[in-house]
Each structure stands twice: as structure tokens, then as C-alpha cells.
């Protein structure tokens, strides 16, 4: 019996996810059918990339409020470079035919730059992460808005994207019954790589050390500043990739895209088990947290719950999930 209780406490959050899916599925079986679950995974893919980036930062005891706007910036940059040559209102009318590699790399480079900037400010200027990323969040929003504010069209939504590009968001690979949406494959691949980084590299060990006891990390010879810059930069690259997939899936972009996604990402990571105070967390935590979030979002709509009640319920779930999870660390001493 004690073993069962231990099993429950250790995997509480995963069980919450399972229970959620089952309960909603029982109440409304359509939740489980017709490719609905696959849709949830598709939406989760973009959110997961952001949550992964934020996870590493949270482990160091920091935060990143600029994630959403950075994704938005990546969206407009990618979309602007992926428009069909025959589209009427192109952002860059004189652009030659480009391989889709260009928008992908450009978006990730933009994200990389923002992440690098965040890292420098936090590690070298010693600005608290909350304030640093609050500042860059606003700067990036301004930058994305400036980017789309183009004569003669002004700030108009970017549309008319090439099929080869939007295929990233809606296409599949494999064949017949074994075809998986590309977007899920990419997200899964990112998860594997990020998990590897956290578990199997010196960077990962350093990140946990910095988050657990930065002073002890310094004494042990960890280059705290360098590692902080790296983890923020990697997050930026992930946000860039998320931007590519988001604009590919929706077929366009505006400077308002992904607004507020950072709060969802942080909440998801924390629900999944990443500690808000640092030192604890895994890539798997991010996956579970994002899935809980999106299952909730999708499930509450399927159940016909009003949008406002959805907010209340989501808030209650966030607090309860974390309270349950915290019990792992608050044993009586």
C-alpha cells in the first residue's frame, strides 16, 4: 500500500493528465475520437517548444517573459520570407524564389539573438530575469511591429504563404495509417534533444547546479555567466522554431501572434513539475504540463463550457496541480 502511495506521489502530475483525459472522454466520447486527440497534439507541439525553452531557464531560477513576443517576431520574419511569388500583397515584393530553409533559419536566428540578449543582460548586467525579459518583451514587440509596418501596406497581416512552408504545419510524413504530422515529429525531436541536453551534457549539470546553489556552483568551477547565456540563447532558438511552426500552421502572421504564450508556457512547465524557485525540473515535466493545458483547453470546449468558466477552471487546476506536486519536496524534516 505504501508502495502504491509512493508511486502516486512521484507521478502525481502524469496521473492527473490521465484522469483528465479519461473523465472528459467518459463525459463526451467525441473528445476521444475523430482525430481530436491528434489535434491536441498538433497544438501542443508549438506550445511544447516554448515550454522546453522556458524549462531550462526556470531551472536556473530565472524566468522569461519575452518568449511569446519572440515567437511572434519569428512568425512575421518567417512568414515574410515564405510568401508565394505570385501573392498580391507581398512584404518584400522583389524577393527572388527562396528555399524554405531561409525563413526557417532566419526566424531561428532572430530568436537566437533575442535569447542571447536576454542571457547577456541577466548574466553580465545582473538585472533580475523578471525585469530583463520584461524589457526585452516590449522591445521585441516593438521590433516585430516595426518589421511589419511597411509602406505602402502599413501593418497588415502577412498571408499567401508557399505550400512547401505551410506543409510544415499541416503535412504529414510516413504513409497510410502510419503517417504522423510533421509538426509533432519536430516537437518530439526537440524534446529528445532538449532532454539529452539536460541529462547528458555538462551544460545540463551546470544548469541544475546554478539553480540549486549558484555559490556552490561558482566554487566548483562552473562558469555561471557563460552557462546562463547559453540556456537563454537555446530558449531563443526554440522560440524561433515555434514561430516557424505557428505561422506555417496558421498560414500567416501578424505582429500580435503568440501574445501571452510565455505565461502559458511557464504555467505549463510548473504544472508539469518544474520548480518555480529553480533547481528542479525535466523536459518530460514540460511535455506533461503542456498536454494537461491543451487537454483542458480542448476538453472544456468539447464539453461546451463557457469561455469564462474555462478560465476559472484552468486557474483552479493550475494551483491544485502544483500543490499536489510540491508535496514531493515538502517532507517533514
Amino acid at each position, binding site marked *: 500500500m505504501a508502495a502504491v502511495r509512493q508511486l502516486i506521489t512521484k507521478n502525481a502530475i502524469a496521473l492527473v493528465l490521465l484522469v483528465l483525459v479519461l473523465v472528459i472522454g467518459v463525459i463526451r466520447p467525441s473528445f476521444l475520437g475523430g482525430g481530436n486527440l491528434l489535434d491536441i497534439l498538433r497544438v501542443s507541439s508549438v506550445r511544447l517548444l516554448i515550454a522546453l525553452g522556458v524549462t531550462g531557464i526556470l531551472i536556473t531560477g530565472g524566468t522569461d517573459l519575452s518568449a511569446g513576443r519572440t515567437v511572434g517576431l519569428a512568425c512575421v520574419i518567417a512568414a515574410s520570407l515564405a510568401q508565394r511569388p505570385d501573392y498580391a500583397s507581398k512584404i518584400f515584393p522583389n524577393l527572388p524564389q527562396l528555399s524554405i530553409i531561409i525563413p526557417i533559419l532566419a526566424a531561428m536566428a532572430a530568436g537566437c539573438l533575442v535569447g542571447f540578449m536576454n542571457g547577456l543582460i541577466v548574466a553580465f548586467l545582473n538585472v533580475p530575469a523578471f525585469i530583463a525579459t520584461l524589457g526585452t518583451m516590449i522591445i521585441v514587440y516593438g521590433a516585430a511591429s516595426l518589421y511589419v509596418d511597411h509602406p505602402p501596406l502599413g501593418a497588415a497581416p502577412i498571408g499567401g504563404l508557399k505550400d512547401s512552408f505551410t506543409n510544415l504545419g499541416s503535412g504529414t510524413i510516413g504513409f497510410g495509417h502510419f503517417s504522423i504530422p510533421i509538426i509533432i515529429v519536430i516537437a518530439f525531436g526537440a524534446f529528445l534533444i532538449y532532454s539529452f541536453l539536460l541529462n547528458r*551534457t555538462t551544460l545540463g*549539470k551546470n544548469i*541544475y*547546479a546554478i539553480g540549486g*546553489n549558484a*555559490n556552490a556552483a*561558482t*566554487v566548483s*568551477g562552473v*562558469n555561471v555567466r557563460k552557462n546562463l547565456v547559453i540556456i537563454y540563447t537555446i530558449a531563443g532558438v526554440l522560440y524561433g522554431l515555434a514561430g516557424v511552426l505557428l505561422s506555417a500552421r496558421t498560414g500567416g502572421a501578424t505582429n500580435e501572434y503568440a501574445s501571452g504564450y510565455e505565461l502559458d508556457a511557464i504555467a505549463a512547465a510548473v504544472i508539469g513539475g518544474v520548480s518555480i524557485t529553480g533547481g528542479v525540473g525535466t523536459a518530460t515535466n514540460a511535455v506533461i504540463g503542456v498536454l494537461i493545458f491543451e487537454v483542458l483547453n480542448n476538453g472544456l470546449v468539447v464539453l461546451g463550457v463557457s469561455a469564462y468558466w474555462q478560465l476559472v477552471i484552468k486557474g483552479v487546476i493550475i494551483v491544485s496541480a502544483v500543490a499536489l506536486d510540491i508535496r514531493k519536496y515538502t517532507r517533514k524534516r
Partner: protein
Amino acid sequence: MSSSEYVLEMSNISKAFSGVKALDGVSLKVRPGTVHALVGENGAGKSTLMKCLFGLYSLDEGEITFDGQRVAFANTKEAIEAGISMIQQEPSAVPQRSVLENFWLGRFPIKSYGPVKVVDEKKMYADCKAVLDDLDIRDMDPYAKIAQLSASKVQLVQIAEAVSYHSKVIIMDEPTSSLTEDEVQRLFGIIRRFKREGVAIIYISHRIDEILAISDEVTILRDGKVVGSYPASELTNEKIISQMVGRTLKNQFPPRLNAPSDKVVLMVDHVTSIVERSFRDVSFEVHKGEIFGIGGLVGAQRSELVEALFGLRQIASGSVSINGKKAVITNPRDAKSYRMALVTEERRATGIFPLLSILDNTMMASLQRYSNKLGVLDRKRGEAAATAGVEALRVKTPSMLTHIQDLSGGNQQKVILARWLVTDPEILILDEPTRGIDVGAKFEIYTIMADLAKSGKAIIMISSELPELIAMSDRVMVMCEGKVTNILDRAEATEERVMTYATMLA
């Protein structure tokens, strides 16, 4: 004797922490209008006794009588309001606020405009200035921020605060550690005034000459017990020191297995800290196979010195050479590149990673060694080395994946030691390696140290435990308030000598 002879009587105080007795039947009786000094080495129980008085600790046994009445203060505020105040060694003032605000913290004078209550700024200033003038402290601006004041000025603020509380008993904990000679005399003048007004002073200090100059009575503590209480007139420097240390050495230490070689591994030449009151003009050499002890009391700046050698603090002048070549060390990575290792004084603050496993804790300093250029860890080799290191030190644990927090203090300390031994250092610096550790684990650590010295490592050991320092070291460098007062050979190092040099202002 009638109880009204003493303003404060602490009788038979006992206090234990986790089974270890910090105070054992301690009695302290203080007469009004006198200076009663409290002496003892680090860990003798002085601060613990005062914290018991102040209500910061609860008594296991014993009672306290103040001004004829039995008291048991629940907190500092009660003690202060009853008439006992304390001037701390490390003043806890609020640095960003002014002298004035710190002075009145908790008791701001209030002015009422009808129902609206505001702080009475004018009265605050006037009353504070009055106290300062009264004490002849004329060079102090009440509006100055605490952070801008020198340590000695901050202490003066504290003294003024104590005066303004109209305390009957003032405890002064190392009051002169930050003062110049003139300021010490000024303080003594204030103390003499207190005496005339009937205030009793409990004076805690390591500076034996000062104690003999200003006290009326002296109580000497050792290992939580009172060794004796004497009128100051009957005491001399030698008598006090011999009472502080006199202890028989039981068989707590393993034999040393080697003599140090002639090869100088580390040479420190006239290094001075960039911080004014920290270590100054320190020079010494450490040989291969040597255990070089550093002794001294709190405030001697020993930790600051070794942290500077390890790149955690800055050196203003002087140089360090390793194996004959000049070494520039500006951070721990540089230190590691010279095969140095540092086990810090406070394992909770700067040693362990509380949320991580024993394995992760052990591997933390050797990650580079067990990973490839891209940073991918060679887990097999790394974990094997970590496990071997932990086992060699006989850490008792069911598994390497156990959380380090589940280990005892002694075992945690061993894990940190293992962390550094895995890096195969040439120079190993240990800052209070057996602090807070049970007797059995201590012996194990001493044995490990003797073995490491035999295998050719150079060990620098900071210790405040004289028996340990003397039994294990080949030579002992004694520091006092930032300066080296002497370097003693094994043959000449006795507890009395070390204590003498530890209290000798250079």
C-alpha cells in the same frame, strides 16, 4: 549573598543542540556598575550564552534573574524593553537607510494630527543628536546612510542606540574589532561613564590586553563550561590563555605517516586584500606532502585569504607562485587549472547542492574531465570515478542516487571532499573540515588527510579547534585580524602558543 548584589544572575544554564551540549551548567553573575568580561575560544559557548539571555534560544536547564526578578525573555524586544541590550560583532543595521532610521527602528516617535499619525521627524533628529552629543560623538551625521559609514562608525551608532534604551546591562560582543586605537579609547571612556551611572557591561572579546585594561571581573569558558571567574586584578595574559585552552588530548588523532618534502608547491608572497580590513601582507610557503595549518580566531580573515588564493576574492597586491611559476588566479576555474581544490567553510551555503543526488554532488567539479569537447558526459567513467571517490571516503549511503540532504553532516562533508579528490588536486585547501561533525567521522577525515599528505598532496587546513590544528599540522601559521603573527613548527606549536599569537595584534 543577597540577590540585590547582582543586576544579572544566570544560574546553571544548560543548552544542547542535537544531543551535543553547547552549555553545561554555566553560571554568570554580574554586578551593577562593573565590566564583566567573558572569554573563551571559538565554540566555547559565549555567543550561545548570550543568545540564551536574549531569548533567542530556550534554556534546557537553569534560570536567569534580572534586577531581582526571575525572567525568561521570549524575544529580543522583551529583553531590550526590560533593560538589556546588545552590541553585535556583526551589526545588523539596515544598510540603505539612514543612521536616524536605524536608531529608531521599532520605536519611531509618533506625532498625531488628529486621527492621522506620522513619524515625528524633528523629535527623531533632536533626540538622536542629543544622545550622540552626550557621548561626545560629534563627527556623525544622523542623515548619513549606514552603507556609507565605516564599520567603526556603525558600531558607534549601535552604542548610541544601547544608551538611548537606558539599558541596565549592555552586552558588547567584540566591540573593538573594527575600531582604531583612538576609537577604542573613546569607547573605554564611554564604558567608564556607564559604570559610574551604574550600568553593567558584559564584555566579550579576544583581545586579552583590552580585557585586562577595562574589566573588573573575568569569566572564562571552555567547551561549554565555566573554568573560573576571577577579579581582573588577579589575572595575567598567561593565566587567561592557559585557562582558555588547558585540555587533555585523548587519542582522537591518527599518526602522521610522512614528513613534508623540501619541494615548495605553493608560495604566497606579501598578498594583500583589496578590502581594507581584510588580510594584509601575508607570506608563506607550502611543501609537497605537508599539512599546513592556519590558526586564528573569528575575524582573523583566514577564510578570506584562502578564498582569494582560490580566485573567489580579489588580491590588491602581492603574488602567488605554484611550482615555481607565477600563477594568476581570478576565478575558481583558474585555480582548478593549477590543480587546486577548496572545501569551503560552510557546506550548506557554498558546498552542497541540496536538491541533487550524491552522484551529482560528487561529479560537480570534474564534469570537464569526464565529457567530450561538445560537452556530452561520459556517464560510465564519470559515475565510476564518483562512486569510487565516495566509497574511498567511506560515506555511508544506500545508493549514489540518494539525495544529499538525507545524509548526516559528516557524510555530506565527505561527499564534498570526494568531489574535489576526484579532480586529483595537487593543493587541497580545507576550511574547517570537521566543523559540525561527529567524533567518528572526524577521525576518518583525519586519517584521509594523513594518507593524502603521504601520497604527496599539499594540504592547507584552516581550523579553529586547537587540538586538531596542532595534532595534524606540520606547521601552523597563526593569523590575527588579517595579519600573520607567526608560523610555528610542529615541535613548538602548543595550544597556549597558538592562542597567544591568535590574540596578539601585529
